[in-house]
């Protein structure tokens, strides 16, 4: 599975767990302050899951700026 598909799947799960509306998630979808009803704790949860499922730790040496689902996918191997 590509990282973007994994993000789509896990975000959908997080939104479903919250009981909020699930919209389309594309590479250009902003993660915060966009159409998705998620906040920083949800995003932090997503990163934990991505780290576990991919075994990658792109933030091990500090924060790397990202805005969109595609940019986050890029950090986890594209």
């Amino acid at each position, binding site marked *: 599975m590509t990282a973007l598909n994994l993000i789509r799947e896990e975000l959908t799960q997080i939104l479903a767990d919250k009981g909020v509306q699930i919209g389309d998630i594309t590479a250009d979808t902003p993660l915060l302050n966009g159409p998705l009803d998620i906040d920083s*704790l949800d*995003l932090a949860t997503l*990163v934990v899951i991505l780290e576990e499922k991919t075994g990658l730790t792109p933030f091990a040496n500090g*924060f790397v700026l990202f805005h969109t689902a595609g940019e986050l996918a890029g950090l986890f191997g594209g």
Partner: protein
Amino acid sequence: MADRAFTLIEGGRAWSVADLPDGRTGVINVSQSGVVGVLGAILSGEAWLMRDADGEPPPAGQGKTPYVGLQTSGTTGRPKWVMTTLDTLTAKLKPGSEPARWLLTYNPGSFAGIQVILSAWIGEHTLVVPPYGADVSAMADLAVAEKVTHVSGTPTFWRAFLMALGNRPLDLKSVTLGGEAADQAILDAVAARFPKAAIRHIYATTELGRIFSVSDGRVGFPLEMLKGRLAISEDSTLTVGGVDTGDVVEIVDDRVLFRGRLDAMVNIGGVKVYPETVEAHLLRLPFIQDARVSPKPNPITGHMLIADIVLKDADFPDAMAQIKAHLQALPRAQRPASLRFAEALDIGATGKKSRSL
């Protein structure tokens, strides 16, 4: 001393007082010496007890004899050497009137382990010692085979011990929980499994010794005990005679409850979170045997919690969904971002859960 009716069962043989080696002094590596060597050194008055072979050597110079040098568990930092004496260690121990067969579940060089060893010694009881580093299953087998009656261990030990014991007959008269804060679920579980046992949880530190014990079957301790030596600091930690224990407490109605170690506190997106509080919440679910909650660095919130969970029955239906629903009762920052099922949690030589990353 030689007529003391103390018996040590260790390494497949029974030792009476006359068999104990005397004059063995200095640095004792407890992984090699066994309890025989530990007891011999303590009684000789010059003992440095090394709980781990690769631990830091004792400080140079010696105290005034008799002394006992102990290492702290280093749960949340490097082990430190603490000097004490046999008189101090035995001050609060009373000879029991009933015969007792103790099982040693702690490291024989730890404060808690020495309390058990000396309780059996003072009481002229029998002490059953598993091989150094034995796992909880081996301890359960030994407990049954030797028909022990008195067992003291950490809450983490007890959760695993109940599971390993299964339905085998074991008639305990005394159950003690120490070393970590006990949660209500484990207090209730040992009470149900050992209905004839006196159950207590004790609060002690290597530095301060035994501070109090509680035997009413409820978590924490009664509010009316919060006087004299015991007080609460500005950081909400318990202080004993002005010494900060680093254990965060909270008053709830008529009870003082332990929330976790101050140095284990994690900042999650600006919210202070104690992993032990989340563990205690998870342990309220009856199908969970044990849980370990640890912090994981996170680029967004600083940290997030992750949980490793041991189920009593690995095939318990809908466990994940029920746990997720149960976690909704916690503030969001306290909810683990990841739930993983494990067959068992590592129990280190201290018998306490390791929450290191």
